[in-house]
C-alpha cells in the first residue's frame, strides 16, 4: 500500500486510469454498481495483499 500522500495519490490515479480504460473496452462488465465501487479495493488493497506487498492494518 502507498505510504505517503503523494504515492497514495499516484496509486488512486493509476487505478482510475486503469478503470476508465477497462470501462471503455469492456463497458458493462466493469461499469456496474458491483464491480465499480469495489475496483479500487481490489487493485489497491486486496491484490497487493495477496501478493504479499500490502499490510492489513
Amino acid at each position, binding site marked *: 500500500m502507498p505510504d505517503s500522500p503523494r504515492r497514495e495519490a499516484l496509486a488512486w490515479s493509476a487505478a482510475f486510469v486503469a*478503470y476508465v480504460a477497462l470501462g*471503455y473496452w469492456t463497458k458493462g462488465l466493469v461499469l456496474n454498481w458491483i464491480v465499480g465501487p469495489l475496483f479500487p479495493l481490489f487493485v489497491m*488493497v486486496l491484490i497487493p495483499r495477496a501478493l504479499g506487498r500490502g499490510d492489513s492494518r
Partner: protein
Amino acid sequence: MSWAAHEFENYFIQKHAGIKISFLGLAIGTLSPDLFTKSFVYRSEDPAMFHRGWPGVGFSHSLIFGVALALLVLWATRSRSWSLGILIGQWAHVFTDIADTAGVMPFFPFSIEPVTISMWRHAASEGRYGDAAAYYSSLGGMWDLFWLVVLVLVARRTLSADYFRSTIVPADPRAWAWLHRRTGLGERGLLTLYRGLCFYGAGRMVSWFLYARFGARTPFQPFWNGPSYLASYNDLSDAGPLEVVWRTTLGGVLFAGFLWLVWRLVGARLWRRGIDPPSVKRNRTFF
C-alpha cells in the same frame, strides 16, 4: 436517470448530515430505486414506462418507497442512522431523476402523474449502450460533472481519512466493525471501500463520456431537452402544465397526510425504540 450524480450526491449529503446518518445506509438508499429493476428496464417493450411509470416499476422512484424501506430497516435493525440514511438517499435519487423527460411519480400512489423538468431525454429505449451515449451527449453528462465539481469544491473533506475516522465510522460503528471482522480489512481497506463509490461515479462518467465521443460517436448536444438526435422524447404524460400541477399538488397533500398518519401509527413508536451509536446525540428533531 443520472449515471453518476447519485454517487457524488452521497458525499455532499453526508457532509451536511454528519454523524447523524450512516453512509452505508445512504449509499444503499441512493442505489435502491434502480437496484433490482434496472436490468429489466432494457429488456422491456416500453423501457421508459416500465422504469418510471405505472403499470411498471416506477413506484421504486416514489417517496413512499423510501418511507417503506426506511421503516422496514428501522423495524428490523432498530438503527436510526441506517433508517435515516436510506430515506434521505432514496429521496435524493427520486428528486434527481425529475430532471429527465420520463420523470418520476413522487407521490405515488396518490398521484401517478410523472413530474419532470425535461432537462435531458430518457433514452433507455436505445438499449444500455445507446442510453449511456445519449446521456453523455446531453445535459445529463453536465449534471454529473456539476455534482463532481460540487463534491470537489464543497465536500472534498468527506473523502479524507480524518473524516472517515471522526464521522463515517462513529456514525455507524457496528456496520464498519462487522465489515472489519468479516473481511479482515484494516482501516486503509475500509477507507478505500468508502471512497469506492466516488471512484465509481467518476470512472463511470469519464468512461461513458469517452464511449459516447469515440465509440458511439453521437453528436454532443448539451442543450435543454437534448440530445435532439433521439427520435423520441419518452415523456410519459400528455397532460398540460396546469393538469400536472393540479394532480401533483393533490397527490402531495394526500401523501403528506398519509405520512403524518404513518408517523402517528407506526413511525414514532419505531423511532422511539430505535437506537443511536454512542457518539450520536439527537435533539427533538431527527437531527
